[in-house]
């Protein structure tokens, strides 16, 4: 089948639209994920989306709703248990280990088709329904609005928490809110590229972008652009190839962008330290 043919099909159009929404939200939060050193939080919350999905299947036969509720629970849990910044990663590790165990148990108890839960592990961009698309869009808009509103104070809190606190910026509340936004974004992204590959949208584009500019606004635009390029490029390449899953291309493109950005940065400014 030709790419032209596929582009006429609703499933492909849905995929491209869903991909765009996920890419924009991931690109938007990515710079903060990198700046705040929260790569492991992305990894943890995305894998825990599997647990949420399994719980959703078991309770209400709805993996997506389960994953979204799970994201909120995980964000709340990590905020309560999180404490100091240097404990954060071990807290995530502890919650992640328990969560995955619980997920396996719940999936074992579920007697329907378990593909809905495993889809969240590997992504099912070509299976996005109208209803899911609407939900995705709603979450995407909510995430974008919150990020737009808290951008500047969150940037202040992320680079210089001590002074931000002294100036009355609610540093802790912003951290908790960002974790919630991150968990929702990551869960949403998991449906496109899958839990296991979320890092390639929430981290790689931003990590590449910050190699190329020190201007926070430029970094955000580049990060969104790279995420879009990886997602839409990946979906189109998958359609054209007929057999290879989009996740493969999405991760390959975002890795290529990252390497290219590092090479470009090294040429422009030698790493002297």
């Amino acid at each position, binding site marked *: 089948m030709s790419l032209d043919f596929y582009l006429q099909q609703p499933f492909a159009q849905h995929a491209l639209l869903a991909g765009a929404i996920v890419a924009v939200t991931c690109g938007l939060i990515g*710079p903060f994920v990198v*700046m705040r050193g929260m790569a492991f939080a992305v990894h943890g919350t995305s894998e825990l989306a599997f647990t949420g999905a399994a719980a959703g299947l078991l309770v209400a036969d709805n993996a997506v709703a389960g994953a979204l509720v799970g994201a909120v629970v995980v964000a709340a849990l990590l905020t309560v248990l999180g404490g100091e910044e240097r404990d954060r990663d071990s807290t995530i590790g502890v919650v992640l280990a328990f969560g995955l165990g619980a997920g396996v148990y719940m999936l074992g108890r579920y007697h329907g088709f378990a593909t809905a839960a495993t889809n969240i592990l590997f992504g099912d961009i070509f299976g996005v329904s109208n209803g899911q698309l609407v939900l995705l869009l709603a979450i995407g808009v909510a995430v974008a609005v919150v990020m737009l509103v808290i951008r*500047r104070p969150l*940037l*202040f809190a992320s*680079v*210089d928490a*001590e*002074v*931000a*606190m*002294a*100036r*009355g910026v609610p540093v802790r509340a912003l951290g908790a809110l960002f974790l919630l936004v991150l968990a929702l974004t990551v869960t949403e992204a998991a449906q496109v590229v899958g839990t296991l590959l979320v890092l390639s949208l929430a981290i790689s584009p931003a990590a590449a*972008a*910050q*190699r190329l*500019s*020190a*201007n*926070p606004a430029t*970094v955000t635009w580049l990060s969104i652009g790279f995420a879009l390029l990886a997602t839409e490029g990946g979906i189109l390449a998958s359609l054209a190839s007929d057999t290879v899953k989009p996740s493969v291309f999405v991760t390959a493109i975002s890795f290529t962008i990252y390497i290219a950005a590092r090479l470009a940065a090294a040429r422009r400014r030698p790493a002297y*330290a």
Partner: protein
Amino acid sequence: MTAVAELRAASMRLGGRTLWDGLDLAVEPGEFLAVLGPNGAGKTTLLKVLLGLLELSGGSAFVAGVAPREGRDQVGYVPQLRAFDRALPLRGRDLVRFGFDGPRQDARAAVDAALEAVGARGYADEPIGRLSGGEQQRLRIAQALLGHPPLLLCDEPLLSLDLSHQHDVTALLDRRRREDGTAVVFVTHEINPVLPYVDRVVYLAGGRWAVGSADEVFTSARLSSLYGATIDVVRVRDRIVVLGADGEVEACHHHVH
């Protein structure tokens, strides 16, 4: 003139220990006040009270006539130098911009003016993690002073700066308080870098305190009674050297970090 910052019978107990008790202090506009004392004497705690981040155990605190929490807009804050990560995607001007609260279209001009005032225009667009410690501190001062607050609180801003940068930073603060009337409260381990500029000194030690000019506070008798031990204060040319039973009190603290 009303005081920019004021403590009345202020006391602070942390972890069952009294840091200071019955402290009376009024900081006048344009005054350069140094806060000294050994580690753990409550110097930073005093700043945190004025920043509205900590409540006093007793007495009262005011900033520009109101409670510190309400007076936040009246205060600029310069912390200890903690070097920024080299890869941090942030320019000098972005750090300064955090000090701006007004309408968006005025930000650029306000940031440029603040950069100009500290002589940081030349490196304002560089990634902040690649600047020297002295340059980073200048940018922090520009951020703190952007809104022209009547009070500037500095917590060991010279720590880990070399001598020439120490001199630059203190001279910059001194010029600012003379030209703008900004009162400067300056926490430091060492009196000498700020000695040419200070109007008064607050010395905290052993749960006691002393306030006065550097000449009044830095005497063997005064410091001995604060520490409850024999302390010798020696003047060497234009420097003050404080000698305790266990060596040079000030210099020791200075090199701990």
